[in-house]
């Protein structure tokens, strides 16, 4: 009997397999591949919605668990499950992939079959990462994401695609190997890869710290956390737009998700100890990304650095570890995914019309020629500066308030300054590209969006507004899980403090620990 989650994970891979079996002359096979890919991704979307329906409200733990033995000799299991943290990341994935496959303007002229198969395989990898609860299984999916992405950049990328793909691949690979080592060490000590079983284990502080750092390295590069971001501008710029969206909207969330899922559960003490440093990195990323974005002349690079800044803010929410900031962080992962997808799709539309993206200063007055594209661009611009009414505001405000009440006040205050910086770079870009005197030489190529193209972007716009105006359905499901994560981590830290410091009065130690947590 195949469970919902298993079906969800492997349906796209099945689609990829079906595409691989297509034969016949190229054009026909490509057309068929497109249909197959769309069918399978839509089926996955439906399955995702069904999952949402089956998801039990108010249940903080893992739901719809599926457990099977995989490699008995090593006690490796096939273990998947969903909770409020992973639910919406799964939904974001299954919503975005069909949209991306619908993108008609993608200049994928050669080998569409391989391309569609890669996108579907990547979807399987992403879903697996979000749902796997066995460390080996997680690692397998984690690396499985890398291969299709390498091809997406390397085959269909821009001029310097080789450089970008290699840099991306080596950088992420090198650090995920560290995670593999840590996973093996965990196995050697505890004899299991089961995340749920590992949750209650304790280890020597020094070892915990090293293992956490090994995990953190993999996640920090994937997210990316400052200063591990140097693959990002190149990869975002050179990848085909669909690849960029997958990276920015979904893969970066895999890194953040990793921090959230494994940091507090496996290494609560080490995680707690590293919080100030991690927060500092996140904060630097927030401000640094925004400052660097100000002077970028290239649209994709500007968005890349702005993404670094936004992702840094989400990371801040994860690291601040308060009920508010965690809920905000999960919500903001979704929101950022939607907004960045919208931004890059708009850039793709622009590129399609002008035969590739030009530097910002080569545009001007586009709003005059393309009012519909301009209006949509404005919506995403203001979502990016976290204007209330858009989803980003809810997420970022919760993160900042949560960080503030967790008594990381300076971080929250400095982080809030991004409100000013993001306004500067986004509006300056808007002025240079969409406002200012219209350039006559652009007139011929500046066709406005067709109804079809508007319809393609409409789901993203609606979701951005919906989450901004009525985020309750999301928060209701996210919060119990983040709350439980938080409480478990706190309990574990208190427990360790009790063990490490054998005070005569255990009660005393506990209250002290609580106080420390509270402060």
């Amino acid at each position: 009997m195949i469970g919902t989650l298993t079906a969800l994970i492997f349906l796209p891979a099945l689609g990829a397999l079906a595409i691989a079996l297509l034969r016949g002359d190229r054009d026909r096979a490509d057309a068929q591949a497109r249909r197959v890919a769309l069918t399978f991704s839509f089926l996955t979307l439906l399955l995702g919605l069904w999952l949402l329906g089956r998801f039990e409200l108010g249940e903080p733990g893992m739901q719809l668990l599926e457990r099977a033995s995989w490699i008995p000799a090593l006690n490796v299991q096939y273990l998947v499950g969903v909770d409020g943290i992973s639910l919406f990341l799964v939904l974001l994935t299954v919503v975005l992939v069909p949209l991306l496959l619908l993108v008609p303007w993608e200049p994928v002229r050669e080998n569409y079959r391989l391309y569609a198969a890669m996108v579907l395989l990547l979807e399987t990898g992403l879903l697996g990462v979000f749902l796997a609860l066995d460390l080996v299984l997680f690692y397998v999916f984690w690396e499985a994401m890398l291969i299709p992405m390498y091809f997406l950049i390397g085959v269909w990328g821009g001029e310097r695609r080789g450089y970008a793909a290699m840099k991306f691949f080596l950088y992420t690979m090198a650090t995920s190997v560290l995670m593999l080592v840590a996973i093996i060490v965990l196995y050697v000590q505890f004899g299991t890869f089961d995340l749920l079983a590992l949750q209650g284990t304790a280890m020597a502080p020094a070892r915990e710290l090293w293992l956490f750092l090994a995990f953190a390295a993999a996640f920090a590069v994937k997210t990316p956390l400052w200063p591990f971001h140097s693959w990002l501008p190149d990869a975002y710029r050179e990848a085909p737009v669909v690849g960029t969206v997958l990276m920015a909207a979904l893969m970066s969330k895999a890194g953040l998700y990793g921090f959230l899922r494994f940091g507090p559960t496996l290494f609560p003490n080490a995680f707690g100890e590293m919080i100030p440093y991690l927060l500092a990195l996140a904060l630097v990323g927030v401000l640094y990304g925004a400052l660097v974005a100000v002077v970028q002349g290239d649209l994709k690079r500007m968005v890349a650095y702005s993404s670094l800044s936004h992702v840094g803010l989400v990371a801040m929410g994860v690291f601040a570890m308060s009920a508010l900031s965690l809920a905000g962080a999960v919500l903001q992962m979704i929101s950022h995914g939607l907004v960045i997808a919208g931004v890059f799709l708009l850039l793709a539309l622009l590129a399609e019309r002008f035969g590739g993206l030009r530097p910002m200063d080569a545009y001007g007055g586009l709003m005059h020629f393309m009012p519909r594209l301009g209006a949509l661009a404005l919506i995403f611009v203001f979502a990016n500066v976290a204007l209330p009414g858009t989803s980003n505001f809810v997420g970022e405000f919760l993160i900042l308030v949560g960080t503030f009440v967790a008594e990381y006040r300076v971080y929250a205050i400095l982080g809030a300054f991004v409100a000013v910086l993001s306004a500067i770079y986004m509006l300056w870009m808007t002025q240079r590209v969409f406002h200012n005197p219209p350039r006559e030489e652009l007139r011929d190529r500046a066709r406005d969006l067709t109804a079809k193209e508007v319809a393609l972007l409409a789901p993203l716009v609606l979701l951005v507004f919906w989450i901004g105006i009525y985020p309750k359905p999301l928060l209701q499901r996210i919060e119990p899980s983040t709350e439980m994560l938080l409480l478990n981590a706190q309990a574990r830290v208190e427990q360790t403090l009790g063990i490490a410091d054998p005070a005569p009065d255990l009660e005393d130690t506990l209250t002290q620990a609580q106080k420390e947590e509270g402060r």
Partner: protein
Amino acid sequence: MEFVWVVLILPLVGALINGLLGRRMSKRAVSGVACGSVGVAFLFAVNALLGLLRLPPEERVFTQTLFDWIVAGGLSAKFSLLLDPLSAVMLLVVTGVGFLIHLYSVGYMGEDRDYSRYFSWLNLFTFSMLLLVLADNFLLLFVGWELVGLCSYLLIGFWFTKPSAASAAKKAFVVTRVGDFGFMIGLFLIFATFGTFDYFRVFEEAPQVLAYGGALATGITLLLFAGAVGKSAQIPLYVWLPDAMEGPTPVSALIHAATMVTAGVYLIARAYVLYELAPVSMAVVAAIGVATAFFAATMALVTHDIKRMLAYSTISQLGYMFLATGVGAYAAGMFHLVSHAFMKALLFLSAGSVMHALGGEETDMRRMGGLRTKLPYTSTVFLLGSLGLSGIPPLVGFFSKDLILEETFLSGNTTLWLVGLAAAVLTAFYMLRGHFLTFYGKPRYDETKVHPHESPPVMLWPLFALAALTVFGGILWISFLNFAPFEKFLEPVFEGARLVGEEEHPAALSTGMLVLLSVLAAGVGIGIAWLVYLRGVTVGEGLRRAFRPLYTLLYNRYYVDELYTALFVVPGRRLSEFLAGSFDQGLLNGIVNGVGRLVDALGGALRRVESGYIRAYAAWMLVGALAILIYLYLR
């Protein structure tokens, strides 16, 4: 009262209809939807006011929860509306003045190609402003606060193909965001202190939680004030408002004079309970207010641009309102807010009428003059507005401004009062200067090309309505035989405020003397303007030369824009460029690529070992075998 949500929703519906379908609708339909939605909203607002009036004064608070907005981890911000006398006053101003300006826009914007976009955004602004004043918690207020900022951005940059307009829009948004940054931190502090954003819970707990004059109370109030400084264009964040005049004139009237810029005053009046606990903040508010009132008035003295003159005047009058709230005279501040909304909307719309008459966007008073005969109505209402703003009885401005000065004096701070009085002289001078330059003297425009004509009725009627409000609005404040409607109406809102004047400052001057002095101040200003600009009295050469540097300084707006550029923009850009260039691409990327290159070099060094000669490999094997043997032997 139950229908107060309708007031809020109607403009939003109008904005959506015009925004999504407007381009396919006729102009008549667009203006019908836009004006209709705001007009009906005004009627509902009046209905809400009547509903409030039917209740006994102390029960005039009505809240309505529409839905849960953000509920997470102990934070519960509901989307709920609050109707009390304070918000009712704002409600009426926003929908009432807003409706008149919508109506006026039908004529003013009639020829514009983006007619529907204009009205969609104007409606969206009305919605946002209503949300701001109707919110029943700080977070929702912040939502409205940001949304009016958005609409301000959109409407200043309405003619976005003009680089100056696009830049002004961007500047307005960014500069107010600097204030909002403070506001946001204030919100964090409020939440960290009270665990809620709800007005009533915050205000109820504030006296217990916050120590009188304590750091926390001062901090919260000053941070909120930072937001107000940005939005209401006070020192040091006023620089965006003069540039904001790049937007269409009705927009300047509605957003940058009558409503949005007064949001800061509303915020302080709303949160007066907190301010009462922070005397330092009150002093800061009053000081910044009066300083801005004077400072902006000096800049209005010399500008040649009629809209910029009005913009500086707005900044100055907003300073008066902050002065009033700073000395605890909240009702007086609110009254000046209302009266200023009437007068400044009137002035801006008449200025728009003048520009319209001169065929478009002419704002330079040096190319106007002698329009009194050509534009009799416009000229008259402009004069009424100017006199009102100068504080000539019995116009509404006399009551409101005089009241602020009086309360300031009674609060015991003579310096504030003196500066305020001096600013009143300047106000009277620059307003009448503007009037004389525009409507008197010889025509200075090109009479062969421009043929001024009075505006169409759709533009004149709103002017008349506003003029009537300017003339008769004072009735709202007349306290005669226990008849003081405005003050009485607001009384329950501000009941906790310490009453100014009842404190133990022996009044050195009687109320009558104070009134006389402030009217005299206005008279002096008007007199000088009359002498200089109508009678053509010229001052001596020596005096003129002595004032030359001062004039240059004022004319260049104290070089504040240049100063900010040098202090913030240029270093910020340098920092960004450094980070993006040598740091990010040079150092960080260099390290990463350096690691790659290191591995490459290592491989390059090692590859030489692989000579490809079989016999060399064999030799190496021999060496290896011998090494192992030697090792084993020596062990």
